């Protein structure tokens, strides 16, 4: 499918790509009308290689048990597998194992953080935990590029604490602007929450500059890495943020699991957002003492099989190399942007060059609503996402309510890009916008 054209430097070879695609059974699927699936919706959820399902099935069939409880052999093996998964995933993300708190996903991670900060604001925060207690008149800074899951929870925290919410705007290409950082990040700013890569524009945020401005006023930084960790080499320690949130299902892993990464000195002193079993030491009828992190933040029975599947997914990514995956996706993105540039009536809602962006490419098609465009593309087996992609404010910034988004993954090919553009070029004709 990829032809014999030489692969871009550092990317995946044609032979590798064939082998990779064979690892993802669903990519061989034929859809209604006999069309072969062209999956261009990885930003919503990535397809999973067989090794992920195999690891989860192996766990279910041979080791399934509750973790961190029980003395029997299965319980011990399950606990070891769970903690081993934590270590592997943390290493892949550039964090220490005790800096990785399992959550239900990115949304779960941000809400856990908000719950922890809400608990701190409850008035009883003492000593180091005061760092997490926001007061009326304090400020939370977000950006216009946020997914609703890194926006609405902060609106809630602001409402609960009396803090005010301010935001950084995006530029014409949907990139978080850092030129008005000095205005937005005031001395009363306690927290800056921002996306690493937009799920709409694909633009990658200048993390270092935002972190510097936040640190200058002692504000905590929270990075939404849902769209970056799956596509770029990701190093939590090197990025210098205090917290980061990721979802396994966007990086070849299963649903229902993700993580909150937190710098260990912060997790040490942060109050738990959720309480209950597994996260406590001593419980009396009137009070409880809590375990050290990350356990303190993992109330209840954890997603054990999912953690094991996720570890297999990061193993798959690491074996290929994130730098090579990124190079492959960048070459495909360049090819896509190039061809889109020649298409009349199609506007890219994001940077039009492949540098500094991911392969999430949202489009505004003149005269055709995204739902209609998506329906047309679907009829040819092309799976794209239509709508606001849970990011209404950035769409408003682009002057639209919704868009048609193609998003790439490591398994996509140049031939698929060409096919997408070929079908896309017929959309306006079908809907009678051009004759």
């Amino acid at each position, binding site marked *: 499918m990829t032809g014999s054209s030489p692969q871009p430097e550092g990317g995946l070879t044609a032979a590798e790509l064939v082998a990779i695609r064979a690892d993802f059974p669903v990519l061989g699927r034929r859809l209604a009308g006999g069309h072969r699936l062209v999956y261009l919706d990885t930003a919503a959820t990535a397809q999973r290689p067989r090794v992920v399902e195999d690891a989860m099935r192996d766990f279910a069939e041979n080791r399934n048990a509750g973790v961190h409880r029980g003395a029997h052999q299965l319980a011990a093996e399950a606990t070891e597998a769970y903690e081993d998964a934590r270590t592997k995933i943390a290493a892949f993300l550039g964090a220490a194992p005790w800096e990785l708190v399992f959550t239900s996903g990115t949304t779960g991670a941000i809400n856990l953080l908000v719950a922890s900060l809400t608990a701190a604001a409850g008035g009883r925060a003492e000593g180091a935990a005061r760092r997490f207690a926001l007061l009326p008149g304090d400020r939370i800074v977000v950006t216009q590029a946020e997914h609703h899951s890194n926006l609405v929870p902060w609106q809630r925290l602001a409402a609960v604490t009396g803090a005010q919410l301010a935001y950084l705007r995006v530029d014409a290409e949907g990139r978080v602007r850092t030129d008005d950082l000095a205005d937005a990040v005031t001395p009363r700013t306690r927290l800056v929450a921002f996306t690493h890569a937009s799920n709409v524009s694909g633009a990658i945020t200048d993390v270092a500059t935002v972190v510097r401005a936040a640190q200058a006023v002692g504000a905590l930084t929270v990075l939404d890495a849902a769209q970056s960790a799956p596509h770029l080499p990701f190093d939590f320690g090197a990025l210098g943020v205090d917290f980061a949130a990721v979802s396994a299902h966007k990086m070849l892993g299963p649903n229902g699991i993700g993580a909150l990464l937190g710098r260990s000195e912060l997790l040490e002193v942060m109050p738990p957002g959720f309480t209950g079993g597994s996260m406590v030491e001593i419980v009396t009828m009137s009070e409880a003492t809590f375990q050290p992190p990350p356990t303190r933040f993992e109330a209840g029975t954890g997603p054990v099989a999912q953690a094991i599947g996720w570890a297999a997914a990061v193993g798959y990514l690491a074996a290929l190399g994130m730098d090579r995956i990124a190079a492959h996706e960048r070459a495909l993105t360049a090819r896509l942007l190039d061809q889109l540039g020649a298409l009349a009536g199609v506007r890219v809602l994001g940077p039009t060059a492949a540098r500094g962006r991911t392969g999430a490419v949202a489009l505004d098609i003149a005269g055709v*609503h995204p739902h209609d465009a998506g*329906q047309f593309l679907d009829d040819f087996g092309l799976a794209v996402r239509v709508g606001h992609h849970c990011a209404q404010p950035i769409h408003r910034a682009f002057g639209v309510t919704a868009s048609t988004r193609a998003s790439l993954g490591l398994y996509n090919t140049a031939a698929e890009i060409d096919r997408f553009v070929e079908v896309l070029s017929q959309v306006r004709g079908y809907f009678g916008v051009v004759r």
Partner: protein
Amino acid sequence: MSSLDSIYQELIMDHARHPQGKGLTEPFDGESFQVNPTCGDQVRLRVVLDAPPDADRPSSRLSQVAWDGKGCAISQASASIMTELVAGLPVDRVEQLDALFSELMRSRGAPVSAAVEDALGDALAFAGVSRYPMRVKCAILGWMALKDALSKALAGDASPARVPEGI
């Protein structure tokens, strides 16, 4: 007919290009603002009732429907066809048609009752849409707004619909 053409029938495309009843008018007896949560498409719809019911005419009549909104071909055409279908009818008949249209949208392409066939007229063109659960919301957006605006009007609530800040 291809599955695509079964959705985008000529009648639907005509209404999408030339929507009926589009453009808000004043005064009104009830107003509704509805959003399709998946795409953020919006419709604002106003109804005007004629005189309250009396002994001769046990039900009020829907004398006017006016709406405005942004949306896909399906949502725009559906609001348009709905407007033509219901304007001037007694309110209880409008409520019946709403229920029948809901039945059509739940049919998933299966044959529908004679009541639906007989009553819905041009709105039957949306039978093809019922096979795409993701698009049903588009087709019912206008109907939802109509139902809401009517119930407000019948309750004597002519206040403007609430619209979120910053939209």
